């Protein structure tokens, strides 16, 4: 490994510890890491967009002498639309920005509409009407082997979906029967939110595991660990950050109020 790679690994661990210091409280060393991250991300994004989009799709076409005059002049249209977007900065001419925004919205709506209708609405509606005969033949009433697939789950899907839809149907009078159906709909929604919450928690813990693996050197080959010494980097970084937090906290004195 080169010296710069080893420095990069140490910097990565130091910045991770800086960000984790937010768990104690919002503090300047966390802010430093946050601003650095934002700055680098924006800088990187701008370069990627310039070389990946702006240059090949606009500048190269405008400068390309091989293209005919008509094709080159066509490329001026997006350039004009870009300048019109910037008219937002001048209140007197800000209305001009509505034209490119209208193009963007219209194009996006057109692209989204067909996909949503075909793949999301139609296919998913069709899937919510299960063929119970086929489900019974394949899985029976309940199959432990297939994560609970079967007639019970299919019926629960149909009833739960119907109850959810009825819960949001406000035009019907809320009599006792409707209230019971609505309650079942809420229960189904809560089950769904619970599953999503569980997956979200899993995702967040996975992120923490990823950082811990890097800090402990578990994600690298032994020869790389021998060169980087990630555990030493973690201890040194933690010592610097803790020392900073102690000094920062003392300077605040009695004015200190926890920020989170």
């Amino acid at each position, binding site marked *: 490994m080169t010296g710069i790679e080893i420095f990069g690994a140490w910097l990565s661990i130091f910045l991770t510890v800086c960000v984790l210091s937010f*768990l*104690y409280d919002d503090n300047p060393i966390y802010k430093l890491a946050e601003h650095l991250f934002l700055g680098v*991300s924006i800088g*990187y*994004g701008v370069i*990627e*967009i310039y070389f*990946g*989009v702006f240059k*090949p799709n606009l500048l190269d076409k405008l400068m390309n002498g091989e293209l005919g005059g008509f094709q080159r002049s066509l490329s001026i249209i997006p350039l004009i639309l870009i300048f019109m977007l910037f008219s937002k900065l001048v209140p007197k001419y800000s209305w001009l920005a509505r034209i490119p925004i209208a193009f963007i919205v219209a*194009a*996006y709506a057109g*692209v*989204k509409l067909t*996909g*949503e209708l*075909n*793949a*999301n609405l139609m*296919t*998913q509606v*069709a*899937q919510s009407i299960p063929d119970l005969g086929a489900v019974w033949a394949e899985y029976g009433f309940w199959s432990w082997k*297939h*994560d609970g697939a079967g007639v019970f789950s299919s019926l629960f899907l149909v009833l739960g979906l119907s109850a959810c839809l009825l819960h949001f149907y406000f035009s019907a009078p809320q009599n006792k029967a409707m209230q019971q159906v609505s309650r079942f709909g809420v229960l189904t929604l809560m089950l*769904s939110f619970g*599953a*999503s919450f569980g*997956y*979200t*928690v*899993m*995702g967040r*813990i*996975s*992120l*923490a*595991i*990823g*950082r*811990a*693996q890097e800090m*402990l050197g*578990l*994600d690298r*080959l032994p020869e790389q660990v021998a060169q980087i010494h990630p555990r030493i980097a973690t201890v040194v970084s933690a010592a610097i950050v803790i020392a900073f937090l102690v000094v920062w906290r003392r300077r605040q004195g009695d004015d200190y109020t926890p920020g*989170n």
Partner: protein
Amino acid sequence: MKLDTLVRFQNMDRRWIFLGMGIAILIPMLFPMTLPFKVDERVQSLYDAVEEIPAGSTVFISADFDPASRPELEPFFRANLHHLLRKDVKFVAATLWPSSPPLVMPIFEELTAEYGKEYGKDWCFLGFKDGKELAIKAIGENIPETFPQDIKGNKIGDLAVTRGYKQAKDFAMIINISAGFPGTREYVLQIQGQYDLSIASATTAVSGPDYIPFYKAGQLNGLSAGMPGSAQYELLVFPDGPPEGVRLLATQSVNVLNVGHAFIIILIVLGNIAFFVTRQAEEVE
């Protein structure tokens, strides 16, 4: 448990929870244990779909993830590349995420070199393309027009691996490693139905529940969600354990995940008990 203890528990400084979670993650990492886990039907389908690709075919990989989703998706990405390369399947890769190229290119280079594959002949990386859903639509319609050059500046027509592959439907399979938008959802909505594509997806845990209906509807032929999905795929690709020099990061992490979950569940149960008992006591007062 005394009432004032429960009240104190409810008002506990949240930093103790952070510390507890940190310890819950670190201990099983420092003292690893091996608990068995089973392979989900969705991951098995994904594995089977890749297994059925004939040797010599070419797949399209859309590596749409970033450093933030690396712990969840990189293990799958690596295991999937091992799977494809040892089956002699060629691949054309691209990404719709700007931060992806520096992350995935070294992995492509490392693993293809390990299997003795040649750039341009057995694989290529077309790099990043902006445009999100519009870019996906363009991949469905015309890849050479969408990516006139690869990441190294070669003209796409000069690469043997891309010859004869003009549209997404020309590939044996689309493998999408998706950390969010744009990703699997957009591939399914924009081009899967239109071209009847075979798409397999590895996604983050957060997106997992959203994509399960696509799998159930047959719009995806396999789905791996989060770190457990990656671990299961690793298990299928390396049933006898990893070869020398290969790290199964997701498999290592599954037990850590279990301990983390147990800690959260204990807190949820205790929090609920404390809430209901204190509320009852307040009502009595």
